[in-house]
């Protein structure tokens, strides 16, 4: 009888221990502990978000559209990742919007929902659809989909246009 109680006490202790351990593991999902930095994803420089031991690629940089102005994909990745961190820290990353600066479309942050651009996040390459880009950034926050790819491999194709077009893709072997 005594030994049974003892055994139960042990079980409760073990459960408490496991509970504490899983709580500690769960704490790494705390959104306050997010850090942004430039790393690589699929061989491209990429803005990554690290939360505990989970690393999520946000944008893969491989466009050469800005190389002429001295901004290689690596340099853009470094700069933009730093901005993500700054705006994340000051809380404005919650209000991503689009605007125009120096005649170019930009993705920026605002001080409030629906507010005007208050800080540059990154410049869009010519032809990119600003609304689609911020939709993708919105999706990355919480929807279970992948990162944004910025490439110049193909000209930009309007999503709606593709969906209503009747070009049938070539079958893959």
């Amino acid at each position: 009888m005594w030994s049974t109680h003892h055994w139960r006490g042990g079980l409760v202790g073990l459960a408490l221990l496991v509970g504490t351990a899983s709580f500690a593991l769960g704490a790494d999902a705390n959104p306050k502990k997010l850090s942004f930095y430039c790393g690589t994803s699929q061989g491209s420089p990429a803005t990554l978000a690290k939360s505990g031991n989970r690393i999520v690629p946000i944008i893969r940089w491989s466009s050469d559209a800005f190389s002429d102005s001295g901004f290689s994909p690596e340099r853009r990745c470094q700069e933009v990742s730093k901005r993500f961190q700054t705006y994340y820290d000051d809380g404005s990353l919650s209000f991503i919007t689009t605007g125009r600066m120096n005649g170019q479309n930009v993705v920026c942050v605002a001080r409030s929902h629906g507010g005007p651009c208050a800080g540059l996040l990154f410049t869009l390459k010519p032809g990119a659809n600003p609304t689609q880009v911020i939709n993708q950034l919105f999706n990355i926050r919480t929807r279970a989909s992948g990162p944004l790819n910025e490439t110049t491999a193909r000209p930009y194709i309007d999503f709606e246009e593709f969906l209503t077009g009747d070009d049938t893709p070539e079958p893959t072997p």
Partner: protein
Amino acid sequence: MKCSIRWLGLWGVALLAGLGLWEWYLARPRRPAVPQLSEALLNRLARSVTVKVVVGRNWGSGVLVARHGQTYTLVTNHHVLEGDSQATAYQVRTPDGRLHPVQSPARIAPNGVDVAALRFTSDQPYPVLCSQPQLPAVGDPVFAAGFPFPTEGQADPGLVFTTGQVQLILPQSLEGGYRLGYTNPIEKGMSGGPVLNRHGRLVGLNGVHQNPLWGDPYRYASGAVPPPELRAQLGDYSWAIPVVQVWQGLRMTAPPCPETP
């Protein structure tokens, strides 16, 4: 007098026949209840109907829901198709490893529900999952599947099957039609994958993982904001679009479930 006895007899026979019919009605064979499946069986079922939707350099998940001859229909999230603006075509990787080109155009929900339907043809026999039109109840066990992205530098984990339960059903849908909060861990890449009940029927589509990376993305589709005490809980759960919203959003009719033997 003779006549009234005859009538009485007739009434008696009618009464007996009526009683007989009543007895038969009570004892008639009932339609058997939909059986509950073991977790191993649910895992196998999920594996056989969950597909990978390849969109350029990204992918998401999808679930086979209808077959007409050699044409298969799958449902996924609209945001899966937005995964790569450079993609000119979508492809579907079926559980047997075959890659099928998707027939254009994709069917998109016109009302902002985060769902899309894709079609492909194949002469291979693939099972399809039938839909459970009723919402599950809070506390019901649910099973979610999909193809998460591998962690950088690690091997592709392939299909992941997770168990959990429905924890919160919102009074109205969040943006995109998300209304079912469940405890199953969902990773990026599992969007569009199925949420099954223990009978192996489709109750919803994955799409929103727990713990948003930053900010507070939760708004009702109506534009209203959930009250603060509710909002504080929303990030604790994964969110699925109930299967009724999936079909209504697409303006399509769910094929009926086959009768259980």
